[in-house]
């Protein structure tokens, strides 16, 4: 069986000069690490570019931006950014980010992880960090599959999907990430796809500005998922995004779970934004309260 990757081949992309693609972003991207490891047809390259652009436009000194990631394809993304980046163990980037932010509240800490990293193995850290409303950003690139390890199912894989560990069809129900984030207490929740590049960059900038736990889900095409599930060519998922995406900032979150059924709409937008004191602000107040009580003998 020839894979979608085989069919695409690098020759299709070899004519794109890196310096052109990342023009104006050299300050934020480690050009010396290019080409990146993402497959042709993957959404991560666009997310990388969008995040680099947002970092430069954020108005926050680039020295204060810190990227944290775990394991998986998406976990490789912050390492391509010319910022302080920590590529830690699988599922743990949010916990690491919590430590970074509490130790130095001046840092702008952004976790970038896949659906496996953030809402499967790292689900416990995700819901509790959201509940405490830490002032950190979490970009979840949801491609419905474990790509790095060869295409196994995860917590967002739609029921009925075929993956390398569900060869007879997947019998689990997936997480609806915006609903999960909302229920857990996230104070900024958005969802885009890489083809909504301008909105994605704008949302990243809003995410940096937001004080509190911000979750941005990026629905990304994955050739490993697509080749087994209705999207055999590397452009098929992108076409599906183009044809079926509906922007609805007022969406009813319980109704925006993703089935990847070409007949169903894919609801995207900035769903939730509320200002609530962050853990860091509350703890700072606690320290001030305690220190007024005087030093202990």
């Amino acid at each position, binding site marked *: 069986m020839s894979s979608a990757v085989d069919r695409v081949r690098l020759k299709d992309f070899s004519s794109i000069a890196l310096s052109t693609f990342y023009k104006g972003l050299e300050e934020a991207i480690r050009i010396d690490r290019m080409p990146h490891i993402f497959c042709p047809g993957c959404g991560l390259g666009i997310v990388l570019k969008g995040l680099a652009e947002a970092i430069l436009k954020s108005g926050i000194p680039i*020295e204060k931006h810190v990227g*944290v990631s775990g394991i998986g394809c998406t976990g490789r993304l912050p390492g391509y950014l010319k910022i*302080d980046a920590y590529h830690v163990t699988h599922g743990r980037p949010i916990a690491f980010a*919590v430590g*970074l932010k509490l130790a130095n509240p001046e840092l702008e800490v952004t976790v970038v992880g896949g659906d496996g990293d953030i809402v499967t193995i790292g689900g416990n850290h995700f819901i509790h960090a959201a509940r405490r409303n830490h002032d950190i950003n979490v970009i979840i690139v949801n491609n419905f599959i474990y790509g790095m390890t060869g295409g196994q199912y995860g917590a967002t894989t739609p029921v009925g999907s075929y993956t390398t560990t569900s060869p007879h069809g997947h019998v689990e129900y997936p997480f609806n990430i915006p609903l999960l984030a909302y229920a857990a207490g996230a104070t900024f929740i958005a969802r885009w796809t890489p083809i909504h590049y301008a909105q994605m960059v704008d949302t990243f900038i809003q995410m940096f500005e937001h004080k509190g736990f911000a979750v941005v889900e990026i629905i990304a095409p994955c050739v490993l998922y697509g080749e087994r599930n209705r999207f055999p060519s590397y452009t098929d998922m992108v076409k599906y995004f183009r044809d079926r995406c509906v922007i609805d900032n007022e969406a009813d979150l319980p109704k925006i779970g993703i089935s990847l059924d070409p007949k169903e709409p894919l609801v995207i937008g900035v769903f939730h934004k509320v200002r609530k004191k962050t853990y860091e602000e509350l703890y700072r107040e606690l320290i001030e309260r305690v220190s007024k009580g005087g030093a202990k003998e």
Partner: protein
Amino acid sequence: MPGLLRPGKYFMQGNIAIGEAALIAGCRFYAGYPITPSNEIAEWMSRRLPEVGGVFIQMEDEIGSIVAVLGASAAGVKAMTATSGPGFSLMMESVGLASMMEIPSVIVNVMRAGPSTGIPTLVGQGDIMQAKWGSHGDYEIIAYLPNSVQEAFDFTIKAFNTAERYRIMTMVLADQVIGHMMGKLIVPDYSEVELVEREKPTVSPDQYLVADSRYLIPPMAIAGAGYRVNYDSLTHDDRGYPSVDREVSFRLVQRLVRKIRENERKIAEWEEYETDDADLLMVAYGCTSRSVKEVVKKLRREGFRVGLFRPKTAWPFPWWRLRELSERVNKILVVEINMGQMVHVVREYAARDIDIMHVPYAPGYMPDPGYIEGIVRKVYGA
């Protein structure tokens, strides 16, 4: 220093002494998850850290706790956690992470009876091997073995210092008896307390290499300092970029273990009691060494030439001194609250032709002096 425990004489619980020592050592971040018998440390730190401008957070589990500690330390703040039994097992993955990213960090493990949930309120010493070998791959840690409230205090400060000096994870392997014991504590004048800080880079960001193999212990750039570097849990080159190159990966792994192996004689500590003319050398540590010392005292009065070798560091183990002593004695008897852990290390390093015996003991209690005395008398055939 306002807010810190003042120099003087105290009667204090071991776990509280650990907390106060951490504050004096400069710890300003604690992340932990409740678990017996280490809870007093978390409770004390939750009260004390905000008093000195630090942060306490109770995380969702032990995995998150130790990872948050590493994050805080990566941002330049001395950080610790404390745990026991199952919590220590859950932290094992991050022992390797700390080693690979070379992030100074401290775990206090108040050892309890296992396996599994075991007896949370009672003592064990079953984590000696796990501390060194519990994470996958090759790495080194430093692990201290306090046997008193004073040592719980002293070794906690040392643990922070060696963590900073070697950019490594260090552990205080206390046990339930030491953690819950009330005992005398002398806090020295602060001027007598050595405090070590990690070395910071002096070169410009474009010259800085995060895992510079020209150093045994490279200077550490903290997050937000302008160095803009990639710290990677993947095997990486000097720039911190992932690598599968044969030479690059082997050079890194070698350096990570050489940091400690080349300095083991500076780090390892031990106590000897009545070893000069001993024919039977007893090896014990932590609370168990208190029982053994009583036995040595009593049997010495009766003329038995018995002595005690007490490692104060499990890792690195003071093997060279054990080897020297083993060449002079006839027999070695290892007493520990497990079914056989440090005895393996003793067997590895003792002179080959002597009799090495072990007292397996894991009921959740420390062995009484009387119990050990009976065994020693049998060894002597008396």
